[in-house]
């Protein structure tokens, strides 16, 4: 039981963070807290992707001492020695997407606060019913 949890702790952390973010998005009344929940949700995903790309004792996938195409074919490369960089590269894009979402959401929150004078969801709904 405990081995299952400890050996895959990165997945447990990511699942736990996803749940925290999801709870905040659904249950919180304050829109800014919802936005923070959304950020936690996105960051949980980023942790998840980064952790699947991690490897103990491996190095960056750059082969030293080889320039251009000459000589590359003579070199024996053990794929196990290198980290797969793709999940990390994907997450660079996902971070940009996350920043853009946060930017749009913050701009919307400024608009909402200026119009209704509050960020509490129930008060805004009250105000909209008038």
């Amino acid at each position: 039981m405990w081995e299952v949890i400890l050996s895959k702790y990165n997945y447990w952390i990511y699942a736990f963070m996803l749940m925290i973010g999801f709870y905040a998005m659904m249950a919180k009344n304050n829109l800014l807290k919802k936005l923070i929940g959304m950020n936690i949700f996105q960051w949980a995903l980023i942790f998840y992707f980064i952790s699947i790309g991690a490897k103990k004792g491996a190095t960056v996938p750059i082969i030293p001492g080889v320039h251009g195409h000459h000589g590359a074919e003579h070199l024996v490369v053990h794929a196990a020695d290198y980290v797969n960089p793709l999940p990390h590269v994907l997450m660079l894009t996902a971070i940009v997407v996350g920043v853009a979402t946060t930017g749009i959401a913050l701009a919307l929150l400024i608009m909402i606060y200026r119009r209704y004078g509050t960020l509490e969801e129930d008060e805004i709904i009250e105000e909209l019913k008038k």
Partner: protein
Amino acid sequence: MIEQFPALIVVTPLIMSFILFAVSWWNKRLCFPILILTLSACIVFAIGILDTVIKQGKPIHYYLGGWDPPWGIEYVIDHLNALVLVAVAVVAWLVAIYSKSAVEKELHESKLPQFYTLFLLQVTGLFGITATGDMFNLYVLLEIASFSAYAIIAMGERGADFAAFRYVIFGTIGACAYLLGVGYLYILTGSLNMADLSHLIPKLFYNKALLVGFAFFLVGVGIKMGIFPVHFWLPDAYTLAPSAVSALLAPLFTKVGAYVIIRIMFTVFDPSFSIKLYPVMDILGWIAAVGIIFACIMALAQSDLKRMFCYLIVAEMGYIVIGIASGNRLGLTGAILHIINDMFMMACLFTVAGAIMYQMGTRNIYEFRYLHRTMPITLAVFVVGALSVVGVPPACGFFSKWYLILGTIQAKKWLLLFVLLASSLINAVLFFRVIENAYLEPREAHAHAHNGGHPIVTLDRVPLNMLIAMILIAAGIILLGLFSGKIVMNIIDFAIPANL
């Protein structure tokens, strides 16, 4: 030149959106011509692609940056997405023509450049989602389309900012669920390329993680396309957006989402995964059945025309899901045909709602009395759209519904057949409620008209560009209906996987 079209159709609107914004500092009046020119170019690209695909009979592969798949990003265009690309381009072009007067009335003058920029970004995202052959690239383009949708919806009337914020929250959950699905597939296969995945996945069919990834895909795309249990954001966001915006988003975004579902279920995952291995089709069928009935009843309860149409979208998405859930050639033909038809039908209904809003300043159905005297053309267009949604030939809605019904009969899913027929009846009631309020006059008014001579009929006081766009969309509905046999035989037949 023509081999560059798959990239050009995405890159052109992207670059032009920035150029348009820069030009607007110098001269605001140039924005609209740039928008129309760009979208016209996109129509040329889309038709060129479709023509090439039909002629060569096999998909076009475009390697971005010359990197071979599965390492590089690849754009793959086969019969299915070529058809969707053409439909998106044509509908976006028509809505762009329509949008000029509508936004000039509803938005402040300083907002117009932003509107046109976001319009082009939205179209970029939709083209990209349709054209790409890479799972992660699809996520990024889905987010580009969503971002422009969030911003453009927030420009609307009172309450639109709050609706847009809720859309941000739900849209992000959807996008994250999709990305999780991509992560699961990547862990299992080490690939992001759709064609590559379709070879790798059948070996992993009994893997539980694959099933979890599949579920995340369905939930994520389902939220984005507004399928029934996760549609909460849709009615508010599309009702409160400016009318040109809902005329753009309502037909296109949800339908492109439906295309993504079909792509994932039938290309990336082998069709037998969701038909034979797991009861995915039964679950989808139940969801669609409940969703259609729920959406139709909710639509009946609305007095706001646009909100009624919004619930109708949820019902129409249910129809497409029914076509998928039939799990046979006929049903999938119906679903694909319905994606195309529904783009035109929803464009028709939402442009009509915008035109009525433009002239009358109201969307309340019960204030539509005598509308046939002041807006005869708009109402004629509305009747064409309404007949198509109800499913009366020769409007296009009939033909896709026909295929959907045949599909459910072949699959022996009688519940879905019943829901299709029952919801058509509810749709008829729904539209006759509006038509009755707009066309028929109360008795006392009729007597009054007899005393005072003939009632005066005036033409619509809606700008010409809006009228022309609406008439063209209505003509498109009839033409799609008349040529639906040709579309099915020449395009859709090739778009359906051979092993279905």
